[in-house]
């Protein structure tokens, strides 16, 4: 094969077949995918969770991961947040002509590792190659499907006054890693993405505690945006205690240099768990027993004080609104 992706590889002809068999099947292959049918044949019944996401992250390689592993973690987590066991994913690659084959191999290999860790199989895939400039290097779409194991499934509109708000670990690691890498900033202390599949921990959590009201991963827009979505859907007020929200010192430092707020930065390996206060201790115990939840803690409570709003109780003891951002966070003049 060429050392660069050529338009031929998306033609559907022999070149495409070689790319599929030598690369994709090599790292992602399984009985179903290897049949190379037009669609996957799956045996599933009951209540199913399904989610799709497109990954266009820039840079495609970053400390702790790359677009391939992220494309698995993101979709697996979205399915798992519904109280479901993720089973299968599909993936579609859109590649820019001239993309280095070595990079593609690293990405597909990471995707394979991530699938293995999460216990999901890729059952259908697609590859397109577009002329140079038509996409930025590589875009990946993944769709995931899984079996819902609790009834009712956790849902963003199910938070109730009196619920405890728990978080599985530190905020902002992924977002700061991406922004820092993109800007070529060398932070004194190392920051790394938290990107990981959370499904094994989440399954254990909902199996032991079906009382969980909401599970949500604070990805784009970060903790603040996700909590605003939940308080709006559930018509409750979230009172957050600033001092209790875990943020790594190096992330705080990086954010203060860049003028960013870690509460609005993306996370790819953390989740919010909202459930009745009486079950909070047990939930934290389960979360902390897993390496991906070892930093779990309670950060706030749902109340009926300001329905639809998130109120931050600051370190100083004051109160303020923690609203949604209008768009992306932008670097400031001074």
């Amino acid at each position, binding site marked *: 094969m060429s050392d660069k992706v050529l338009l031929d590889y998306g033609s559907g002809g022999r070149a495409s077949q070689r790319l599929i068999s030598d690369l994709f099947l090599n790292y992602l292959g399984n009985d179903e995918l290897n049949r190379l049918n037009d669609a996957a044949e799956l045996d599933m019944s009951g209540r199913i969770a399904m989610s799709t996401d497109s990954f266009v992250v820039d840079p495609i390689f970053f400390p702790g991961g790359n677009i391939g592993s992220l494309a698995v973690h993101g979709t697996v987590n979205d399915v798992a947040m519904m109280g479901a066991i993720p089973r299968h994913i599909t993936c579609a690659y859109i590649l820019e002509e001239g993309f280095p084959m070595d990079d593609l191999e690293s990405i597909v290999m990471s995707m394979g590792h991530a699938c293995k860790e999460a216990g999901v199989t890729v059952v259908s895939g697609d590859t397109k190659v577009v002329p140079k400039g038509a996409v930025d290097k590589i875009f990946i779409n993944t769709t995931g499907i899984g079996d819902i194991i609790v009834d009712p499934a956790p849902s963003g509109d199910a938070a109730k006054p009196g619920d405890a708000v728990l978080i599985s670990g530190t905020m902002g690691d992924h977002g700061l890693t991406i922004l820092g890498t993109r*800007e070529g900033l060398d932070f004194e202390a190392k920051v790394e993405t938290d990107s990981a599949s959370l499904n094994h921990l989440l399954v254990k959590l909902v199996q032991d505690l079906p009382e969980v009201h909401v599970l949500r991963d604070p990805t784009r827009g970060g903790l603040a945006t996700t909590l605003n979505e939940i308080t709006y859907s559930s018509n409750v007020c979230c009172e957050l205690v600033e001092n209790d929200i875990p943020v790594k*010192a190096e992330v*705080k*430092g990086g954010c203060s240099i*860049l003028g960013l707020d870690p509460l609005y930065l993306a996370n790819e390996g953390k989740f919010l768990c909202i459930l009745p206060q009486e079950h909070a201790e047990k939930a934290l115990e389960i979360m902390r027993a897993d390496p991906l939840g070892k930093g779990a803690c309670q950060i706030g409570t749902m109340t009926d004080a*300001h329905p639809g*709003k998130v*109120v*931050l*109780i*600051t*370190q*100083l*003891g*004051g*109160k*303020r*609104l923690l*609203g949604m951002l*209008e*768009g992306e966070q*932008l*670097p*400031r*003049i*001074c």
Partner: protein
Amino acid sequence: MSFELLEKFRDPKLSRKILDKMESGLTKDLRFMEVCGTHTVAIFQSGLRSLLPKQIVHLSGPGCPVCVTHDSEVNAFLDLAGKDNVIMATFGDLMRVPGSNSRNLKKAQADGARIKVVYSPMDSLKIAKENPGDLVVFIGVGFETTAPAIAGTMKMAREQGITNFRVLCFHKTIPTALEALLMDVHSNIDGFLLPGHVSAIIGLEPYNFIAEKFGKSAIVTGFEPLDILQSLYQMVDWRNKGEAHVVNNYKRIVNDKGNATARGILYEVFEQTDALWRGIGNIPGSGLEIRQEWELFDAKKEFGITIEEGEALPGCKCGDILKGIKQPDECPLFKKACTPANPVGPCMVSTEGSCAAYYKYKLD
């Protein structure tokens, strides 16, 4: 500074002590203005605003560079964006600032204008080198804080022989604006929290007129809650004693004499001129323009740009808000026609604008 040390400036117990002491010393309202947008955000973000005694009236002044950028300046840079062979380089906060016909740089970018958000003006030189067939125009907005870095960038461009770099200079200077505010009888300000970053460059001396001529206090203040509380308490105390002083409480960063090297670079490249401030109008001698010796880098000269006072935005009270005459929620457009999604005036668009801070942080 280490975070451990900074934590001491956020100590809730000590803050409570100062707040109690301040409250017991208050005999009447104290109207204080923080000049700098970073103070505005710090006061809200830390929750300090919700803890201040009712008699402390908090006003946000003209120290958010985006907020005081005049409509015709905004229109000038929007007109340049999208011109053939022009790449605009800008700090991020200007991206959503609305010009006439609700244009902004974000929309211009979607229409194909080449706009790069940079963290440092020096990044523009890299862009210029990478695009030798294009002219890179950096939008120079800001005060004495940012002006030296931009002057330094122009010096670097000259040293490196980069000829396709220009600066569209809309810089303004703070002390002249404060004097204009104090001259306005409606403003009725008892004291100022002076901006930390600007003062690090200009030092304390340019503010002395505030006490000498107007009998008001002004304190260069850091951005942590205890910095702010200490300065407010001092201003209450001085007023009770009938005193007025201009002092520097931010000695860990600001030298009383400022930074002579930075001022040297600034005035090597720029000279004082008149400037239009949004809502305030023309303030003689409050702006900076590029000296003739540096005109090769002057985008205004290159494109024949002149800035003139146009018509104010109808209904928008940004001007009164910047002067401390009105609070953001007293503007009829606030949260109605004017929101961060659809800002009418720049005080709503800038993250450091007082309207945006009210919208974002204030609990009803």
